[in-house]
């Protein structure tokens, strides 16, 4: 199951992901039109300063089992096995805040949304952009990321690729080193030939 894989060491804190996320979750999905919408579009990804010029993009990890799902008193948070996401149904959400009490990663935002127009606010978080997924496109934040800090892929495949890369890098680095240096006599003898 594909998910957004974050490489914080690459993030430069440009906030393009936040902008793209807010636009994707607006009614028009257009930056200029979104500015005038009745419901102010809200980004579901946050970027925190991490110190030493590092940044940290923070978003829902779609835990399984998810602590927020277990505590939701409204039955609004459900696992979607087909998409591999933990989703909030804004129509069922009653804005009680229990999910924020349970989330280990601090990813929930409370704001009004056009999906539940009668509510003052509902819990909002990353949904892996279902409209884009239906079109075969990656999530908006991934498409917006210019430095490869946000990637959309299979965690197992990405881990295998990273493992291969590290193994090759280690092997290459070890080639120069030799367990016991060649004795001077043999080195000189080789120079003769």
């Amino acid at each position, binding site marked *: 199951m594909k998910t957004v894989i974050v490489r*914080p*060491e690459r*993030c430069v804190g440009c906030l393009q992901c936040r902008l793209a996320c807010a636009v994707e979750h607006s009614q028009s999905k257009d930056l200029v039109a979104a500015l005038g919408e009745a419901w102010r579009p809200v980004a579901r990804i*946050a*970027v*925190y*300063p*991490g*110190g*030493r010029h*590092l*940044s*940290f993009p*923070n978003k829902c990890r779609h835990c399984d089992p998810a*602590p927020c799902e*277990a*505590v939701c*008193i*409204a*039955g609004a948070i459900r696992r979607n096995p087909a998409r591999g996401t933990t989703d909030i149904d804004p*129509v*069922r959400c*009653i*804005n*009680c*805040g*229990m999910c*924020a*009490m*349970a*989330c*280990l*990663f*601090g*990813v*929930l*935002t*409370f704001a009004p949304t056009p999906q539940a127009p009668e*509510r*003052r606010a509902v819990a909002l978080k990353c949904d892996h952009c279902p409209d884009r997924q239906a079109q075969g496109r990656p999530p908006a934040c991934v498409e917006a990321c210019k430095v490869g800090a946000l990637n959309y892929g299979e965690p197992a495949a990405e881990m295998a690729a990273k493992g291969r890369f590290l193994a090759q890098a280690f092997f290459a680095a070890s080639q120069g080193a030799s367990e016991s240096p060649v004795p001077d006599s043999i080195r000189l003898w080789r120079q003769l030939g």
Partner: protein
Amino acid sequence: MTYVIIGTSAAGLAGAETLRRLDPKARITLISDESHLPYSRPLLTYLLGRETTREKLFLRSLDYFREWGFETLLGTPVTRVDPGAHEVHLADGRALPYDRLLIASGAKPRLPPIPGLELSGVFTLRHLADVERLERHLAHARRVAVVGAGAVGLKAADALAHRGLAVDLLARGAQPLSKVLDQVSARLLMEAIARLGISLHLNSWPTAVVGNGGRVTAMALNDGRELPTDAVLFSVGVAPRVEFLAGTTLAAPEGIPVDEHLQTGDPDIFAAGDCVLPRHLLTGAPAAFHIWPAAVAQGEVAGANLAGAARRYDGILPMNSISLRGCRIITGGHLTPDTPEGEIFEELDATTGRFKRLVFDQGRLVGATLVGEVRHAGIYFRLIANRTPVKDLPVDPRSPHFHPGRLWARPLPGAA
């Protein structure tokens, strides 16, 4: 194996589902004295405030019991449990044999011992039927008094005010939620209560409900006042439902004592949810705390242990989210430190009304209260539950830089 589960709310259902996953062939029978499909009890105040609808109360589909292969006895109260014979006796005279039993019978509202409780217009809010009764009465009511300013009382007062009723809210102490909230948070909460148009009466409790012609007309208060009202809603806490365990050694008045596996004094009987007296996660002392998420967590552990998993329940960390219109508070853990070397950190932003209060003890975070901005509450509670020493954290929780960036963004080795 034949399993019987008493109760079909948070703990009972979580137990049944966990048990089913671990033992697909087990015979599982669920008993409830309520005849409805399982519904969310905490949503009742939201239903009262018309913030949700009746059909959204139900958390499971019509086919739920059949899909999970649960046999059900709904609308059937349990009268007695016979641990010796391994039998549950029902109100209709039947006796149901079990190999292992889960008691998740929940709690019932307490009522103060005052005269006038038999009058029409006196209510509690615990069951779906309570909301239906209250709805019928409110059709011709204008003023409602809510007795008890705990989590349920506050939310009920908010709901009733939202419907345009004149609401009097009685708090026994000098502030609402006196057991879990500090003075600053309580002041912010009281400001929000005032903005909602609710009349809050501090240090007040009723000495009698006064009626005329069988209907409530007023409430006599401890200070001699008489508060005119058309209905009284009592939300002064709950008591565990253990009366059907009379004659056994299983129950105590404060709840069913259980060990760390949620096993009762009888090895074939487990208990979970509001009927249990669990241990406090930090102190290990018996601590009754009734909240939906804890009931679900206990139900999962008890359900697994019914199947023989021997899972441990770490204990309860009291915490709650108070969400009124225009006010959001998440608070949990200790209100004050246990030892003299403990320390309390408070930071109030007077312009935004945001407040952060942390309680430290013996180098660890033991309590947290957030008002206004609550999105990182779960991080604080995880540190409390894990007993993580503050000195091991990359950033001090008191710092304004305590956020996911400083907690998780680390320079690569050699990159610094």
